[in-house]
């Protein structure tokens, strides 16, 4: 009952906005081309979700059901986020671990990192196209850069902030350097590293939308830009809402994963 109540409470503001928006649109306060009614957006979203073609011969029902444009776009974007993130985080994690553990390596790479870090991934777009041409590779590159720095910075901080008491306890138990690193420093640093992963995924998701506006012909970012060409504002908004939902889904999944990996952690918020 309480859950229902809080759900209704949470739904109040969005519903109110939708109602006012719908009313304004129906009253003709603004042109449908500039700002379509929410009901029109919902209808468009539904059409965007459903398969565009009738079921072809030899095509399975499920395959047909999933052949809609929206699902294809969402899948393409998600694929780019994951591939780019895996590349970026996969490079950042080992580098961050050695930079955190070794002061000399840290001092060697740090100036470079500090200069490159403030450059927004978007600023790499011209180079990305020059270097990688069109298609997925420039997207992967941009997303990897977006994911790289948050994971790197947090991994360095995580390794550097390992409580000295754990190191002393471990040395007292007779661990060697490698075991100290894999069984003590690495797990002790995971809360920081996972916070970096979460920020990195968020950045990757922002970058994927932008990167799709330049070099590819599918994905959610491409679709809303394409819709603009035709002045389909209902489709633009439907695409934006899909981006929001996908982002929420990714963040929820990462947060679930965090909760599982950090089930031992004291300061965990549930």
């Amino acid at each position, binding site marked *: 009952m309480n859950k229902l109540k809080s759900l209704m409470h949470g739904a109040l503001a969005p519903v109110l906005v939708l109602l006012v928006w719908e009313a304004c649109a129906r009253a003709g306060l603004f042109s449908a081309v500039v700002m379509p009614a929410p009901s029109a957006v919902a209808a468009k979203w539904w059409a965007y979700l459903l398969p565009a073609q009738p079921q072809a011969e030899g095509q399975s029902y499920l395959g047909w059901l999933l052949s809609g444009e929206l699902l294809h776009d969402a899948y393409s974007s998600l694929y780019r986020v994951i591939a780019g993130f895996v590349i970026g985080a996969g490079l950042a994690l080992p580098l961050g671990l050695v930079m955190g553990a070794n002061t000399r390596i840290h001092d060697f790479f740090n100036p470079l990192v500090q200069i490159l870090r403030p450059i927004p991934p978007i600023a790499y777009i011209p180079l990305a196209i020059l270097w990688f041409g069109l298609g997925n590779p420039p997207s992967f590159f941009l997303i990897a850069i977006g994911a790289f720095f948050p994971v790197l910075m947090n991994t360095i901080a995580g390794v550097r902030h390992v409580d000295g*008491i*754990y190191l*002393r*306890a*471990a*040395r*007292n*138990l*007779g*661990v*060697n350097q490698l*075991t100290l690193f894999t*069984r*003590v420093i690495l*797990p*002790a640093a*995971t809360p920081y590293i996972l916070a970096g992963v979460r920020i990195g995924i968020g950045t990757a998701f922002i970058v994927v939308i932008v990167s799709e506006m330049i070099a590819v012909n599918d994905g959610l970012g491409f679709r809303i830009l394409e819709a603009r060409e035709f002045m389909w504002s209902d489709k633009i908004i439907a695409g934006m809402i899909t981006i929001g939902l996908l982002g929420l889904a990714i963040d929820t999944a990462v947060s679930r994963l965090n909760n599982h990996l950090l*089930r*031992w*952690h*004291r300061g965990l918020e549930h």
Partner: protein
Amino acid sequence: MSQILINNVQKVFTTPGGPVVAMKDIQLTIQPGEFVCLLGPSGCGKSTLLNAVAGFQPPSAGEITIEGKKILSPGPDRGMVFQEYALFPWMTVAQNIAFGLEVQKKSRSDIAQTVNQLLDLLHLKDFRDRYPKDLSGGMRQRVAIARVLALDSPIMLMDEPFGALDALTRRNLQDELLRIWEKLGKTILFVTHSIEESIYLADRIVVMTYRPGTVKRDQIVDMPRPRDPSSAAFNALKRELGALVMEEQQRHANAEMKLAAVD
């Protein structure tokens, strides 16, 4: 056997305000199986001495040997129990206890057997798969003791292990520790600032002076166990040691006042 020889040990820390002599001229011989308490106010160098024996901070001068071998680094022959427990929070109770054995590359079945014995010995059976965050302070310290016992080291170093516990839990763990010590015959070097705790536990109490830490009194406690803290003998010794510790506490307080006045 594991006799600890502390030979003319000195420790100087360099601080921004100049060198501080944390301890000097410490000369102690601890016999195998002996339960020794280091007693004194904070700043008397008792933890510094313990850390030197543990091998975390080597002394500036003098040497510490165990069975004639000089201590150069920390090692599992001297298990340490910390006041802050220092359990690995990402490991369950059983994993924490097993960790030292895994490091020593013991076989799986040996590890499982030792872990089960220790869970039994310290009444931790029902908690084996819990994480430290779900345990009370007393329970955590039991796990920390079990983790050190797993190493089967002849020497246990304890740095105010019960300092953060409430009085009842504290007494309970003191009794457990005595029971384990009598059963396993460990040599225990135990740091505390509680006079009562030292008399309750130790064969021998080493009272230390405030900075520089030196041995002020080396007191044998010749009372049968279990000791009764309300007995006349207990209280006579408590008064006597109390006066010694208070002198040092006073020097500590004066030194701090002087510092405050300079500021």
